[in-house]
């Protein structure tokens, strides 16, 4: 029976249904309070968690997002039920941390990860198109490295408790969210009173959606980066059909809820600076490709015991803190006295994105093996 279910989820229909459901749930969460055109943005939501923990002080983006907790715990549940939980670590953890930091800096220059780029497109925000093109460009560079022997080395089996660390941290976050303890004035957790961080669906709806997506994504290996990578690497459209279903599912749900507002400028929590939308996502795409998964996939892998993916997640959360504390994140378009002010990123942000691309290129060039390990 379990093999049959595994077979279905591994099939084309399995990934399409999962993608379509994620699209629906994201748009539904917006209807229930999540920020517009955000649905579920893994990068933004990890950034909000960083803010809620006081790791950065951008007071409009601070909230412990239950969707992220659900992603990890839903994947953990699926992995345990289907006996796929395998604790493993030791595949270049420090490099993965650095890739996580720069993946977040790139994502926040664009103001979203591939998940949000898809939800932005499905909501009519056409600035998502250059973002997605940049993402594909970054992934294509990553594929070139993969083809020339790049890899982060083998992981090893480890004690189950190591694989349980990130799920345990997520349970801790859930407790902080529910109990809202006060240790001292204003701390230890911070919640936005205005801005995107203050906009959220009710806890149980967000958590439930996260758990369901985590469960299904663990079964189907849903990955927005892998979707593009597999097409470039070997013309395999399996994962891309899931990403396509996400965009169509979100688009149809947005139409039904009156949430589709086409345009290029002044879109919610987005800027229309063409060059830095492209370059921000190019950096993010390259970092995801080098680390082997999109930010969502890294959470799902963490749930099934992959401590290397957990390090990438912690890198992204740290990257969010750097991004806001150093003023690197994108500034959305705004309307002041009826005049559109095009947003974008600061000079520091531009330097950080270029530095990130340079660091990723060094990692890609320097971690190549001439003969791939294992072939005899």
């Amino acid at each position, binding site marked *: 029976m379990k093999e049959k279910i595994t077979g279905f989820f591994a099939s084309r229909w399995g990934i399409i249904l999962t993608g379509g459901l994620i699209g629906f749930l994201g748009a539904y969460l917006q209807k229930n309070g999540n920020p517009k055109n955000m649905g579920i943005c893994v990068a933004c939501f990890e950034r909000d968690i960083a803010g809620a923990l006081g790791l950065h002080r951008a007071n409009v983006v601070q909230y412990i997002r239950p969707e992220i907790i659900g992603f990890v715990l839903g994947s953990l549940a699926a992995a345990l039920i289907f006996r796929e939980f395998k604790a493993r670590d030791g595949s270049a953890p420090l490099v993965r941390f650095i890739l996580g930091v720069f993946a977040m800096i790139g994502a926040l220059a664009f103001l979203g990860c591939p998940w949000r780029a898809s939800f932005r497109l499905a909501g009519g925000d056409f600035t998502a198109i250059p973002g997605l093109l940049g993402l594909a460009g970054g992934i294509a560079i990553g594929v070139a490295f*993969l083809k020339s022997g790049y*890899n*982060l080395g083998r992981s090893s089996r480890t004690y189950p408790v190591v694989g349980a660390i990130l799920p345990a941290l997520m349970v801790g976050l859930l407790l902080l969210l529910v109990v809202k303890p006060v240790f001292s004035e204003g701390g230890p957790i911070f919640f936005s009173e205005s801005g995107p961080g203050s906009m959220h669906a009710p806890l149980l709806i967000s958590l439930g959606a996260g758990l369901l997506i985590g469960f299904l994504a663990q079964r189907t290996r849903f990955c927005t980066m892998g979707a593009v*990578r597999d097409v470039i690497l070997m013309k395999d459209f399996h994962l891309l059909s899931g990403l396509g279903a996400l965009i169509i599912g979100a688009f149809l749900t947005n139409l039904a809820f009156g949430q589709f507002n086409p345009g290029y400028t002044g879109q919610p929590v987005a800027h229309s600076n063409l060059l830095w939308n492209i370059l921000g996502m190019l950096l993010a795409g390259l970092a995801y490709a080098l680390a082997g998964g999109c930010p969502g996939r890294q959470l799902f892998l963490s749930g099934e015991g992959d401590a290397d993916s957990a390090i990438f997640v912690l890198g992204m959360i740290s990257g969010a803190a750097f991004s806001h504390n150093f003023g690197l994140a994108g500034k959305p378009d705004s309307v002041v006295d009826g005049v559109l002010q095009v947003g974008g990123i600061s000079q520091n942000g531009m330097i950080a994105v270029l530095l990130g691309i340079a660091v990723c290129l060094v990692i890609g060039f320097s971690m190549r093996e001439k003969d791939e*390990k*294992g072939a*005899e």
Partner: protein
Amino acid sequence: MTTTVDARGFSCPQPVIMARKAISEGKYPVEVLVDTVTSRENVRRMAQMQGCKVEILTQGDDFKMVITR
């Protein structure tokens, strides 16, 4: 002559890249060792797309995939 590819410990997409390289060299059967269901399913899909037959044996916590043309 059997070609053996030990892809245990490597994460997506490395096992697929390694198995595909061995298949392209044409020395069948190709035996691929993987240690996660994800790698098993990804290698299986790739091999079947290349027109190969795949037999899967469970070995403890690992999988041995025997790929033939």
